[in-house]
């Protein structure tokens, strides 16, 4: 039926410029109740015999979305006019309500009231749009009641007094959210409610904390003033980034002044959250150095630093706050502009994970209690919430959402969303790690799984006869991976040629043969971006049948691969290189230890061992050449847990040991990545996905240089080559010294990032750490989406596949690479948080004495790095109350802390013996503590 005769045509007239739009009203929009006798019930979503059907008003959806997400609220009708209004006001709430409506477990029905013949209403003269929409909601509610008869109560939920009054007058059942939720007799639901801001009692919580000076924030400028201010250049717009390690310090990257503006202290931050788009006003230049005093002024809230995993790069490490030493020297950093926030252009509020600040149960519990929520992520301020279940929540990890933050209150106010579990429980804390890092750990949807080939999968005859696929099953291919590796995405071969050269091949799982662009599987992988490795579990980017079976290059099975094959001279010079899709059959899947043992065992002369030895000798030459070019041998303190298979508790931790076999595999992977990068860039100079590692700036290397200077070591950091050389020469009196310096150097550098080649100029493609002009990721498509993209680019450059349409759109490609960087960063943060969590669990029962190195001198003690466990934390020489004072003083030049009488002194990089122990300063808040023996 193409033309529906029963349409009634009406036109809507618009504003100044008259626009006429057709608006078809229909008689085929159904009510969604399965028990309805009149309507078609095939699309019905409401439950079979509800006693009450709710109709939600726009403001209820906008403000009480956390409540609606609770399963207790059900059998609700969402009108299309409500959806339209919500969409215009808040897109993220719109997406959430849409998700509820499409969830088959919920009975939420979308009723297109605006297109229904009987519920569409015309605006009356003199009626505002809001009034018209409120009336439309009432008309629809009335229609439902009439349509479904008196057997069901149709209840309009609205917090708008006027709307409720009119509804009651018209004979419609209407209630406020509060009264409705109270009628459900579920006190826990009341916590989910967003309180109307007028009855918030500001002082109640803060009065519990003695001697608080009341903070009043300056008023946010109205939007019109901000716009004109931005226009005139007195305000600067940018996204606020709060320092992960010091929540009183934040940065706004401003394009208008081409630099980061530093915002010190909560009052200058003026209620902005991390991620908000803000308008900043620069402070007068003479105030640019006040940072230190400001952060101390707010310092009463500053918790002491916890013990953390040692940082692996500048992105992990806290920004160094310049020491305002007694020397009075002007620090380089203080010349950076600082400012204060005058307005918030776009809020980035979402929900946060954390726990309630411990507080005594007030007398007469059971009533409403005000509590302070502390986010696990220190970048966010505490949030005031109201709860009726304090007792239940005190020892729990909970999720809280922010509702508002007004000028008179020190903290924003919010409401409870849900409980994750008990604090300290491993599963709960792992869940927190995942939520905090925005990692999707849900099982794959059925649509995604439907994209997988049927199991058991084997190489088909079509694959073998495909002219683009070379049959390499007769080649002796093998893989070397960490023990127990199930997702093997790379394999190697090395065959001696009659002319004395070697044919070396790197074979990578042909993931793109199974993951096709535009499919749900591809979309999901692109969203996830990477697999996430936690200590006790792995969250896959692709479903298990692909990662562990179909794509995994296991031994003795035929698998599809994408191969890079070089001919190399015994001196490791590349004579020729080629790329091809292939079929391989791995002859051995070895662990690093096994491979190393084979190479070391001089009695073994079998072909596989010979291949390994040849390969190793080539790798050593390649590595040497790379280092000569200036590649840095960086070091990080990676630890490895031994996990109890039953309880999943850590049994042992130790440093991850790197063997020659690791380096051999790594060397060939690097070479393959570089070769592929060259090939794709040649074919697609504007839309290749590459990886670059920015050269560290002077300022970033400053902490390293200061440390080196204090111990009399000269480091030349002018080029990566000079840096590599001086790192080589940095040999101290103990064997660990060189590694320590390398670790300190590594943490000064930022991390490598993905980018689209069209965005930057070729000199900027440089990869500093590898000293390579271009680099990309090709070798791990099972667990990194970047590699999937690169596989597609490589296939297209060989002319065997068409380039997917996304590559024609540079903007889209940039957003893909931004997402990949974001996901990688989060995956790393999650991995580190997981290691920290397990470290804590490990030491809970095992107080330990161990050796540590001092890495930073502070006014009241120093920071030590514990090499054996890869952790770093503060050791206090004085109690916290007498901060900076007392009998110790600092020698800034020599990076020493000395006792006044000169009897004891500690200097940087010195070895000390420390005691490691888990303490609980507050109930349910265990933390690791380091103390000097």
């Amino acid at each position, binding site marked *: 039926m193409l033309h529906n005769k029963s349409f009634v*045509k009406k036109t809507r007239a618009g504003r100044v410029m008259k*626009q006429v739009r*057709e608006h078809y009203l229909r008689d085929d929009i159904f009510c969604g109740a399965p028990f309805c006798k009149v309507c078609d019930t095939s699309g019905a979503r409401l439950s079979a015999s509800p006693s009450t059907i709710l109709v939600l008003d726009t403001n209820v959806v906008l403000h009480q979305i956390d409540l609606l997400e609770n399963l207790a609220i059900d059998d609700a009708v969402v009108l299309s006019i409500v959806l339209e209004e919500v969409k215009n006001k808040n897109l993220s709430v719109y997406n959430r309500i849409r998700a509820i409506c499409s969830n088959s477990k919920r009975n939420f029905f979308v009723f297109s009231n605006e297109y229904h013949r009987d519920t569409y209403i015309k605006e009356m003269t003199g009626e505002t749009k809001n009034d018209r929409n409120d009336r439309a909601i009432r008309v629809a509610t009335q229609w439902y009641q009439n349509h479904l008869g008196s057997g069901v109560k149709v209840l309009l939920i609205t917090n708008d007094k006027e709307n409720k009054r009119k509804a009651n007058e018209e004979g419609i059942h209407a209630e406020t959210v509060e009264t409705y939720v109270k009628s459900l007799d579920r006190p826990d639901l009341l916590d989910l409610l967003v309180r109307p801001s007028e009855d918030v009692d500001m002082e109640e919580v803060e009065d519990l904390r003695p001697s608080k000076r009341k903070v009043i924030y300056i008023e946010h400028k109205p939007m019109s003033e901000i716009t004109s201010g931005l226009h005139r250049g007195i305000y600067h717009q940018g996204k606020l980034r709060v320092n992960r390690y010091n929540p009183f310090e934040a940065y706004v990257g401003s394009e208008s002044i081409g630099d980061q503006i530093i915002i010190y202290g909560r009052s200058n931050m003026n209620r902005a959250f991390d991620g908000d788009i803000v308008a900043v006003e620069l402070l007068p230049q003479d105030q640019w150095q006040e940072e230190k005093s400001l952060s101390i002024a707010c310092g009463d809230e500053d918790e002491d630093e916890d013990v953390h995993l040692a940082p692996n790069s500048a992105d992990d490490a806290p920004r160094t706050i310049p020491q305002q030493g007694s020397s009075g020297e002007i620090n380089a950093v203080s010349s950076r502009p600082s400012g204060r926030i005058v307005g918030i252009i776009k809020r980035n509020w979402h929900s946060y994970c954390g726990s309630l600040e411990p507080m005594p149960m007030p007398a007469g519990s059971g009533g409403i209690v005000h509590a302070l929520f502390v986010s696990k992520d220190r970048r966010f301020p505490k949030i005031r919430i109201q709860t009726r279940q304090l007792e239940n929540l005190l020892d729990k990890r909970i999720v809280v959402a922010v509702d508002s933050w007004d000028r008179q209150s020190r903290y924003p106010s919010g409401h409870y969303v849900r409980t994750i579990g008990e604090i300290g429980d491993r599963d709960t804390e792992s869940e927190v790690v995942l939520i905090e890092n925005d990692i999707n750990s849900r099982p794959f949807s059925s649509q995604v799984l439907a994209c997988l080939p049927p199991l058991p999968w084997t190489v088909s005859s079509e694959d073998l006869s495909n002219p683009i696929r070379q049959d390499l099953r007769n080649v002796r291919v093998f893989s070397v991976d960490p023990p127990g590796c199930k997702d093997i995405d790379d394999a190697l071969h090395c065959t001696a040629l009659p002319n004395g050269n070697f044919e070396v091949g790197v074979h990578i799982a042909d993931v793109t043969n199974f993951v096709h662009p535009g499919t749900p599987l591809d979309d999901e992988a692109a969203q996830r971006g990477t697999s996430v490795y936690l200590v006790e579990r792995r969250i896959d980017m692709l479903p298990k049948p692909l990662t562990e079976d179909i794509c995994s290059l296991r031994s003795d099975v035929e698998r599809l691969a994408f191969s890079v094959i070089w001919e190399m001279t015994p001196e490791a010079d590349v004579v020729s290189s080629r790329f091809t899709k292939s079929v391989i059959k791995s002859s051995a899947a070895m662990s690093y230890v096994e491979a190393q043992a084979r190479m070391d065992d001089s009695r073994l002369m079998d072909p596989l061992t010979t291949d390994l030895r040849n390969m190793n000798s080539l790798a050593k030459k390649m590595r040497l050449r790379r280092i000569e070019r200036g590649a840095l041998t960086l070091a990080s303190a990676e630890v490895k847990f031994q996990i109890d298979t039953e309880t999943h508790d850590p049994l042992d931790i130790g440093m991850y040991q790197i063997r020659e076999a690791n380096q051999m595999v790594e060397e060939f992977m690097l070479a393959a990545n570089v070769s592929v990068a060259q090939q794709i860039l040649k074919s697609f100079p504007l839309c290749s996905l590459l990886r670059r590692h920015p050269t560290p700036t002077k300022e970033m290397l400053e902490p390293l240089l200061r440390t080196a200077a204090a111990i009399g070591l000269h480091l030349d950091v002018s080029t990566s080559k000079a840096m590599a050389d001086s790192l080589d020469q940095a040999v101290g009196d103990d064997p660990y010294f060189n590694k320590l310096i390398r670790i300190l150097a590594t943490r000064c550098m930022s991390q490598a990032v993905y980018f689209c080649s069209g965005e930057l100029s070729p000199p900027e493609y440089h990869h500093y750490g590898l000293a390579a002009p271009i680099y990309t990721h090709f070798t791990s498509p099972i667990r990194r989406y970047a590699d999937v993209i690169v596989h597609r680019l490589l296939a297209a450059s060989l002319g065997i596949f068409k380039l997917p349409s996304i590559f024609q759109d540079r903007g889209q490609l940039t957003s893909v690479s931004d997402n990949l960087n974001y996901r990688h960063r989060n995956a790393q943060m999650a991995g580190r948080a997981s290691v920290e969590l397990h470290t804590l669990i490990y030491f809970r029962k095992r107080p330990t004495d161990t050796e540590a190195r001092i890495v930073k001198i502070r006014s009241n003690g120093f920071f030590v790095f514990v090499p054996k466990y890869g952790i770093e934390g503060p050791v206090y020489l004085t109690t916290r109350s007498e901060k900076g004072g007392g009998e110790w003083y600092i020698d800034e030049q020599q990076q020493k802390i000395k006792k006044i009488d000169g009897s004891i002194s500690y200097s940087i990089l010195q070895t000390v013996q420390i005691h490691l122990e888990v303490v609980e300063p507050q109930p349910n808040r265990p933390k690791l503590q380091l103390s000097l023996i």
Partner: protein
Amino acid sequence: MEYVSPEGLRLDGRRPMEMRQIRAEIGAVSKADGSAVFEMGNTKVIAAVYGPRQVQNKSQQMSDQALVRCEYSMANFSTGDRMRKPKGDRRSTEISLVIRQTMEACILTHLMPHSQIDIFVQVLQADGGTRSACINAATLALADAGIPMRDLVTSCSAGYLNSTPLLDLNYVEDSAGGADVTLGILPKLDKVTLLQMDSKLPIDILENVMQLAIEGCKAVANYIREILLENTKQLEYRRGV
């Protein structure tokens, strides 16, 4: 932008496979030999046909077939912004040509050598799909003028937005930047005489979108036949047959 809601309704309340309301009227310009008004929703066009008549410019006369000419224009009040549009701009020249070629393909020109047929189409109100409406109006006007044709030519557009093929795009949907296929067919002979597309579409989706447009053309053809039948009945009645 959401052009099709998850409930399956378009911005104007239609479902993806539904056309706008169409309406036609024969004989709007009494001076012409044949004329018609054709409406697809808020798009309204008028067509007038003169001929077959003597060729005005002798040099263009053809001894084996009739000369078909077409002039397309848009009324200044046809769009919201009421701008004075110069006559003979590139767009109208192109549309004139498209209409002429489409109509020429179905007129039995060889029956009328040494003669000329003029088709004038003017858009009175534009709301997307003007090309299709012009062709449909011209078909009716030619039929009204009694010009021999192989078949009716009918036209309809279809597009692809939010991963959904949509029939008969209105102005809002048309300006969304998605693909827009305008199709003209000879419904009885089941032949395509016009196929135009803006933007790009993967080939398999193009097939779906085209199929939808064909359905649309057929529905237009049925309606046009009804109108013609009705008109003939009226004529019969007036002549007292």
